[in-house]
């Protein structure tokens, strides 16, 4: 009877948790920090971009957010709340920057951010997208943040409320006001925008 070869264990190494990576980052492990960056950069950038109405400085602010974390990773006591912490720091930095240097209106920013091809069929869709972006940009900052976290980043109301350091009821109120404002802003062009949306999907 032959000796059976030992079963090879699964070679897939589980992804280290945020807590593990933070602990390593606290020991100045840049590789661990790079993993945290790749895990959370997109969400933080998306939020900052939205809060800054597509301003080109969004990348700089996002970087400053992560550098703040790198300066003292131990400042975050609950590693599970890292994403919320980053979003909060990012939004605070946006507010600070807006106080020092008012941002451009979205009319300019949308042109910078929108790199859609100018093909005939996509023109209406691009215009509709810009109209929606403008309507969101016109909302107050807290409403914009709630919209961005829940609708664009797919956070649950509970997580978004924790990120914004408000109660779930307060978050829902912010979302309701934001949605009401958006409806008022977009209702006049509703048919045109929905038609453009349908065209874009064809």
């Amino acid at each position, binding site marked *: 009877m032959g000796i059976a070869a030992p079963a090879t264990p699964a070679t897939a190494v589980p992804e280290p948790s945020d807590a593990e990576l933070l602990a390593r980052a606290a020991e100045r492990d840049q590789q661990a920090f790079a993993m945290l960056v790749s895990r959370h950069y997109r969400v933080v950038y998306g939020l900052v971009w939205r809060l800054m109405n597509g301003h080109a400085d969004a990348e700089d602010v996002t970087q400053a957010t992560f550098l703040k974390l790198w300066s003292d990773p131990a400042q975050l006591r609950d590693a599970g709340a890292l994403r919320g912490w980053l979003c909060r720091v990012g939004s605070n930095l946006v507010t600070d920057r807006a106080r020092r240097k008012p941002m451009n209106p979205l009319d300019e920013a949308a042109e910078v951010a929108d790199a859609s091809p100018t093909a005939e069929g996509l023109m209406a869709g691009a215009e509709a*997208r810009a109209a929606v*972006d403008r309507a969101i940009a016109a909302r107050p900052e807290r409403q914009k943040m709630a919209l961005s976290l829940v609708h*664009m980043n797919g956070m649950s109301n509970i997580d978004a409320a924790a990120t914004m350091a408000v109660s779930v009821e307060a978050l829902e109120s912010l979302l309701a006001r934001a949605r009401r404002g958006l409806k008022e802003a977009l*209702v006049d062009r509703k048919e045109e925008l929905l038609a453009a*949306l349908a065209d874009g999907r064809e």
Partner: protein
Amino acid sequence: MTRDVMSDTELDRLLALATVPAVPEGAEARLMARLARAEAGETVVTFKPRQRRLVPWLSALPLAASLACGIYLGAAGFADPYMTTTDTVAAMDDSAAPGLDDVLAISEGSAS
């Protein structure tokens, strides 16, 4: 006239249109490079500017006083008796110094 309204579903469809910004290419690499620079910056030994000390000014004070004293004594003629003439060095005689008028005469050879 009744105003058109928008349903939640319609708004959700429009919200799905909103731009989801793509992360700029190389953004994460730029961040890590910035981080590495910041780290390197922390190890640079910074030289603090030297503090201005009072001692050089204090030591300059007697020097300045000595200079002022010397100028005064020289101007008042107190040092003249101590300045002797020798055979090799002619005594200065300012009265004999030729003036501008004499220069013309000398150049024309009428004076020696």
